[in-house]
């Protein structure tokens, strides 16, 4: 068990892979959340649910590492966007979570709101990680070239989900999610199925969701690629249950479409 500690700024942190991971997903803003389109995709009947295993599609290269900053929101959304792009046929580009965090953290490393990542990724996009690495979390540190690059990597369409069944439906339709979990003393302890321990709370950590699995018990769980490097869980991943999702304050959205990269275009039709 990795015990939670409280930092001087009041935020909590947990040690994973020799680094204290700050838990800095801030409570959702009701008004910002209301501005995100409501669940807007066909609902898949639970009796038609099937497993979606992205662990081989999105392997080690896709596991980001926010290290010691409270930038989980930025990293969760960057992880989701780079997966959505690949599912649309675009090349894999490891995107920067720090870039988005810099736009939405108000100039302080005290965390951010998940809904703000959607707004930022629709307005500004994010650049490749090479142009804005994990430790570049303030706008003053970011070069203009990164801003130009960020225009290539944006979210086109997304919608919010409030329930576990809506989240699973969206994942089954091939979309990628961003949402919250509560990380306490139990979370980092995975059971034999790879399911994270449950901690009660409003949600203090932003994560990405990209797959669905049915356990031997019949329970459906969601696949969670974390942003704490490969040291966490099983090569950076764990599963979470309906209870994990529905016990936190909802600030979850699904990316339905990424914008196309203007530097990697297919040809226009000629006839």
């Amino acid at each position, binding site marked *: 068990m990795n015990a939670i500690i409280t930092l001087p700024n009041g935020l909590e942190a947990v040690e994973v892979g020799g680094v204290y991971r700050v838990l800095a997903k801030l409570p959702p803003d009701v008004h910002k959340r209301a501005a995100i389109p409501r669940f807007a995709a066909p609902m898949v009947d639970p009796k038609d649910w099937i497993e979606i295993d992205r662990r081989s599609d999105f392997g080690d290269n896709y596991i980001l590492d926010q290290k010691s900053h409270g930038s989980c929101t930025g990293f969760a959304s960057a992880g989701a966007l780079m997966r959505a792009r690949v*599912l*649309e046929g675009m090349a894999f580009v490891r995107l920067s979570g720090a870039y988005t965090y810099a736009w939405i953290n108000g100039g302080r490393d005290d965390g951010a709101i998940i809904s703000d990542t959607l707004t930022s990724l629709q307005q500004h996009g994010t650049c490749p990680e090479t142009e804005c690495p994990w430790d570049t979390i303030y706008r003053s540190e970011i070069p203009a070239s990164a801003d130009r690059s960020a225009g290539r990597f944006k979210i086109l369409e997304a919608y919010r989900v409030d329930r576990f069944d809506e989240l699973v439906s969206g994942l089954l339709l091939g979309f990628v999610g961003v949402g919250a979990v509560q990380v306490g003393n139990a979370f980092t302890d995975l059971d034999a199925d790879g399911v994270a321990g449950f901690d009660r709370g409003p949600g203090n950590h932003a994560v990405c969701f990209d797959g669905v699995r049915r356990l031997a018990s019949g329970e459906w769980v969601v696949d969670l690629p974390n942003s704490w490097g490969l040291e966490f869980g099983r090569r950076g991943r764990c599963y979470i249950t309906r209870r994990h999702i529905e016990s936190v304050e909802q600030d979850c959205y699904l990316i339905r479409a990424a914008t196309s990269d203007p530097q990697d275009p*297919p040809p226009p*039709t000629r*006839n």
Partner: protein
Amino acid sequence: MSRLDRGRATWFLGHIMKRISSLSLTFLLATTASAQSVKLPDAVAVAPGRLAAVTVEYDGDDLRWRVSSDLDVFREFDPDPRKIRLRLIGYAPGRYELTAVACKGGKLSDFAVCVITVGVPAPPPPPPPPSQKVAWVIVVEETAERTPQTARVLGDLAFWVRLGVPWRVYDKDDPVVKSNHYDVTAGRAGGLPAMLLLSDAGDVLKAIKLPATTDEVRKEVGR
């Protein structure tokens, strides 16, 4: 010559010329040992008002032939008694027929038919395009209406990677869909989700509804 002066032609050539729906000529010829036969070219094309030449070759005691009434026809001299040289004129574009049958020893040959096409010659068909390979697979969809069936096809990432052809999935609202004219081409596919197969130059090789399975996609792409 846009139109033949039939009276002068008749005088000049010293042969009959008739505007008829049916012409018959009978020739009594020496009996030979070979079977009765008649031979015509399969087809002749001529511009309106111009002379077409058709030679009837036959083996037999007798020959009868007839031609569509809308054609004018006269016979030219030929020293070979087994040949009949005909000149025909049509004034209205259309398809006409010259039919002939020979008789020898009381037995008829098969009918021979020559199709006479009067009209502006059709341009030669364009050469077939060189065989083009599918260089891009473009899918245009309304993501808000994506079904589980569509998701099973589009979400099979391993399949698309193995397919070996670049592919893209576009929401219909992506600006590229309009700027690259994918919306117009998708309209020809019969609705969304549409699958467009493009050459590397952007030629649309096929535009169809997205198949229901990845196997069908593979067949369409030709892989």
